[in-house]
């Protein structure tokens, strides 16, 4: 197991490094003079020079990139251009909300999608299976922002039973949850369909394997054959997908946060873009990318824990 773990970690480090280099370089390709653009009409030559030096932009490219990486590794993500506040704080304020949103959407998708998939696989070609198939495909094809808008239309505008804006009253958990409903459902919809189909396909494939047939031939009870022998094998590809799912939820959360006016990484980055607040954009993107990579890594590890074949592929002669 260990060799595989080390290999994966090594690869991950390299990728994160490349990501940081890329983001460090990104600021370089801003057309025109970024500092002048930032300052806008207040750009006097002295101010420009001062700001440029403050932002380390007068140093050679590779130094800038190295400084960025060095600082990032120490948790210093720079300061907000306008307020001077450490970006780290700004991110810290809102990261929690985004993560809660992503996790609750993922949880919702799993709770709904997996049982639907299991049901479809155990009743293949029944009318319910067909309905679910069509519904799944439809759900998959609805992008999260479209779902968010439509749900808002339905429940906030038309029926007026769910709130459309914000986090809810501070300190009020019930209200917070109430404000969480529409956003999570919007994000979850696509994944419910996807998971249902994935679980269904995976299960059907597993149920057709030789080892399930062998298990039946040894007289194991159907319940054990299904819930123990088949399910564990079928869930392995699902778990891998969930890692990707968490990452994609965090990205999709951007749309949803902007639409429902919730504070989060999404609105942070969105506002920063509109304000040309590049340091914040860069830092926000870095944090999300790292979280995404970590989510995938964790999914991989869970996978290798579940599937004993993976570890030994590396170490056996």
């Amino acid at each position, binding site marked *: 197991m260990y060799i595989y773990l080390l290999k994966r970690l090594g*690869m991950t480090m*390299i*990728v*994160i490094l*490349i*990501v940081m280099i*890329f*983001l460090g370089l*990104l*600021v370089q*390709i*801003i*057309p025109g003079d970024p500092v002048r653009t930032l300052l806008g009409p207040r750009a006097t030559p002295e101010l420009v020079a001062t700001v440029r030096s403050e932002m380390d932009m007068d140093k050679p490219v590779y130094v800038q990139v190295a400084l960025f990486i060095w600082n990032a590794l120490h948790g210093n993500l720079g300061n907000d251009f306008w307020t001077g506040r450490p970006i780290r704080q700004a991110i810290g304020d809102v990261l929690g909300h985004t993560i809660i949103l992503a996790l609750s959407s993922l949880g919702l998708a799993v709770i709904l999608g997996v049982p639907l998939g299991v049901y479809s696989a155990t009743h293949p070609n029944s009318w319910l299976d067909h309905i679910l198939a069509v519904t799944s*495909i*439809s759900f*998959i*094809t*609805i*992008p999260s*922002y*479209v779902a968010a*808008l*439509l749900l*808002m*239309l339905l429940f906030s*505008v*038309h029926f007026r039973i769910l709130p459309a804006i914000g986090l809810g009253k501070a300190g009020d958990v019930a209200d917070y949850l109430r404000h969480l409903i529409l956003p999570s459902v919007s994000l979850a919809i696509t994944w419910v369909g996807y998971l249902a189909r994935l679980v269904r396909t995976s299960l059907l494939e597993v149920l057709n394997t030789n080892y399930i047939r062998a298990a039946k031939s040894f007289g194991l009870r159907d319940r054990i054959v299904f819930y123990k022998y088949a399910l564990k094998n079928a869930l392995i590809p699902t778990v891998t997908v969930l890692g990707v799912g968490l*990452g*994609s939820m*965090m*990205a*999709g959360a*951007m*749309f949803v946060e*902007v*639409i429902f006016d919730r504070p989060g990484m999404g609105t942070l*980055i*969105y506002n*920063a*873009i*509109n304000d*040309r607040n*590049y340091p914040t*954009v*860069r830092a926000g*993107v870095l944090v*999300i*990318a790292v979280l*995404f*990579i970590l989510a995938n890594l964790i999914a991989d590890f869970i996978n290798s824990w579940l599937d004993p074949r993976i570890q030994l592929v590396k170490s056996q002669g």
Partner: protein
Amino acid sequence: MEYVARSTSRTTRFLERIPVLGAVLQRPLGALGFSIVLIFVLTTIFAPLIAPYSDTKQDFSAIFQPPSRAHLLGTDNLGRDLFSRIVYGTRIEMSAALPAVTIGLTFGLLLGLLAGYLGGGVDNVIVVLLDSIQAFPSLVLALAILAVLGPSLTNVILVIGLALIPGYARVTRSQVKSVKNNDYIQVEYNLGASTGRIIRMHILPNIIAPLVILISMDLPVVITFEAGLSFLGLGVRPPAPSWGVILSDGFKFIFNSPWPVMSAAFALILVTLGFTLFGETLRDVLDPRLSGTEGG
């Protein structure tokens, strides 16, 4: 002798003679998907003939109208006919989707061929490169780059194209590797075939099918992506009728009228559904065919 003959109508027999597409059309979902795609393509080509009004004509006396005979999908906050805007929007979507997919396909194919055929160090480097691109959720990658380059249709195309590259590269790479493993490649090589001949005659035909499937699955993703970016104001600028812009305008006035949001949503969902159904049926048709043999 002892088997049940399947009923064959004239349509079925006609369709059976068309390779691949015929098989797709024989399946109901495939036919449905294909029809939608066809409508979409035709609308793009004949937009000015289909749209009753221009996409920018404003009419302040008729804002926020619900659907009617004069305005099939209603009007938006500036009195513009939604149906016409959606119809002209197909052109924007296509003009984003096609180039983006072309970029992804071209570079992805190249990288995949290099990685798969040459293997070794080249392969390692390319894989690390692909992993790095895929380390970002594509939206976040797009945002980062667009933040820097500024919003425009061209930049959107570039960014989406970049995000698509790893997909094509990986599919190409794995197909190339699996084909390379076959003995017949070695036979060709030993008879004296040049690398170019091997790639041209043996490797490329085998990778066409998965790539085609990927393309048909990617097109709706690109459209949705572009619309999303435009919705956030980071893509096509208004008043161009990108469906994302229509959505965004509609969102601002969502409490005044649901129709702008609904019409753009409808268009997006329909097109995505069409391509997805078509793509999935295409995959069902092509995949088992690749591995199917006449059983002994």
